[in-house]
């Protein structure tokens, strides 16, 4: 036990005395969170849409058909109630809910105006706003068409509501992503580098020739990074809440739980990498390629997963950050509870066990 504590203390000293590392692990999350704010306009596809139309008439059916026929939209059915609509949206099964005013045709004929409500899921604000734009355009097109036919001016008013993100803050989207990225960098890259550094510097030799158990050493190496990454997680959370106004709608404890699981996962991956490479340079490159880039590209952090070609969507299954980001989005932004994220949690825990097995199998008690 004393060995363990002595080792942990040594690891903290290494970190604190290395100015460059300190800059990265404290400065990076802050910088990224404050700088990250580009808007990506991407084509949005496969928009799941459902209609609430208790009293269909020629117009509502006409509009619905137009939308259904559009290749961007994926018709899910006609909802029986608003509650069912909300539930579907909450579960992530619905991107757009189209709600027709009661007595649509009557209103239109009598007063020349009728309203359609477009409720778009904006936890991914990009997707949400584009979805609304498409729908609005389709409805405008229909209106124009009809006016040409009937030769009576009228107006279909569209009312857009952004669900889960009324102010359209893109920060809602990228905060979970940044968390995933930052924690991955700190835990995976730093941990693997720290272990490989012992190999490279020659101190590993001396450690091996002592009674120190490999397990103790490995565990002791992860502890400082666990602590630091948790602190970073809190920093990101505080900054996004106070500076960017991102709400924490769900349980804080649940959020912490998810963070701890993800941190453990990325740390374990760092250990796995350290058993596979011999030089610090290689540890960084290996981690960057297998961890960072997939997180940036495939985790849903920047590019929505649904937009990706099938192959990449499948690939994103094994990117740990994908599950973390989904879980965080659900808890933090949508305010969901544990029942909504058990799948993500289970997958992450499974990954931890798998990586642990690989690490243990690869850990050597000798130099070669």
């Amino acid at each position, binding site marked *: 036990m*004393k*060995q363990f*504590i*002595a*080792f942990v203390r*040594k690891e903290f*000293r*290494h970190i604190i*005395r*290395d100015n460059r590392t300190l800059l990265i692990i404290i400065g990076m999350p802050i910088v990224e969170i404050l700088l990250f704010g580009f808007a990506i306009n991407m084509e949005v596809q496969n928009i799941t849409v459902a209609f609430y139309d208790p009293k269909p008439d020629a117009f509502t059916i006409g509009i619905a058909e137009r939308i259904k026929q559009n290749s961007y939209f994926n018709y899910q059915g006609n909802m029986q109630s608003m509650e069912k609509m909300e539930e579907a949206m909450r579960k992530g099964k619905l991107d757009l809910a189209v709600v027709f005013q009661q007595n649509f045709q009557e209103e239109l004929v009598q007063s020349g105006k009728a309203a359609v409500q477009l409720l778009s899921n904006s936890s991914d604000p990009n997707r949400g706003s584009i979805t609304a734009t498409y729908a609005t355009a389709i409805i405008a097109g229909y209106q124009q068409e009809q006016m040409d036919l009937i030769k009576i001016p009228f107006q279909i008013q569209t009312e857009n509501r952004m669900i889960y993100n009324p102010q359209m803050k893109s920060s809602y989207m990228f905060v979970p992503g940044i968390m995933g990225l930052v924690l991955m960098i700190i835990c995976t890259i730093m941990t693997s580098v720290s272990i490989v550094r012992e190999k490279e*510097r*020659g*101190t590993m*030799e*001396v*450690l*091996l*020739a*002592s*009674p*120190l158990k490999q397990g103790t050493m490995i565990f002791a190496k992860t502890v400082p990074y666990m602590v630091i990454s948790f602190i970073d997680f809190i920093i990101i959370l505080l900054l996004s809440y106070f500076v960017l106004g991102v709400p924490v709608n769900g349980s804080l404890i649940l959020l912490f739980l998810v963070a701890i699981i993800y941190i453990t996962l990325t740390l374990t991956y760092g250990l796995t990498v350290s058993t596979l490479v011999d030089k610090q340079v290689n540890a960084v490159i290996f981690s960057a390629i297998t961890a960072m880039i997939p997180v940036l590209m495939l985790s849903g952090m920047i590019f929505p997963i649904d937009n990706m070609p099938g192959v990449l969507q499948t690939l994103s299954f094994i990117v740990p950050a994908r599950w973390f980001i989904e879980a965080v989005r659900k808890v933090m932004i949508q305010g969901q509870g544990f029942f909504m994220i058990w799948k993500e949690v289970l997958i992450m825990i499974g990954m931890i066990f798998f990586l642990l097995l690989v690490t243990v199998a690869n850990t050597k*008690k*000798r*130099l*070669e």
Partner: protein
Amino acid sequence: MIKVKDLYKSYGKSGKIKALNGVSFKVDDGEIFGVIGPDGAGKTSLFRILASLILPDSGSALMNGHDVVQDYRRIRQIIGYMPGRFSLYQDLSVEENLTFFATLFNTTIEENYHLIKDIYQQIEPFKDRRAGALSGGMKQKLALSCALIHKPEILILDEPTTGVDPVSRKEFWDMLARLKEQGLIILVSTAYMDEASRCDRIALIKDGEFIATDTPQGIINDYSDILWSVEGSRMSAMLKELRTHDMVMSSFAFGDKIHITVDAGFRRNELEQYLTNKDFRDVNIAPIEPTVEDCFMALTR
């Protein structure tokens, strides 16, 4: 006691690089055993096997009764190991390094302070300085302290004096002599031939084999050639000249003199005359006792 029998070790595809080619030897308690030879001769491979850090291809080695392959856990508790490069933590202070290694071996600095006192006192004034900022000689002293702090039974030192200036080297060997008195087995390797005389017994190693194992004096006694030293002006030219002479079997520079081995028919006055005729002045030829270095060169010719 260390007992090594027929150790073989090779690296690379199909064992292309033969590091150890059948090494056997014994070391008793309280002995300083030196392995003397150039880089690449196999010293580091041998020491790593004995420290249980790599596995031999074949052969056996017992360190105070413990087998290097099976009992490696026990061996790692009783040895103090100093590998070739400086292998302590550069960004930790002297004292932090020592405390760390003490704790690693489940002991404290206080418990075994008497063991390292002589050595550590020299660097104690710098105990808060980062290890990376120490000079070469001090780094060696620190590394030695860290290897001793847990009262090992066997010390394995792989080229501890390489790259260290002559004064620090001498001090280091003085420390080893004092440690030996405490009953430690000290296994040390070096490329400096002059350090051989400070060992109880030595083994000359070349290309993975021990070409001689004995006390330094024993190896010298075994030297069969007749050795002379030659001095004079224009030493480098004289060297070339001597190489062409029939009676001279070998000639090598040794500092300010040239050592030559000669045929049975050699006459000192003849050579003196010969050299003087060739315009070399102040020629002085004298018989000398061989050093370990002379023996090494003869054995590897």
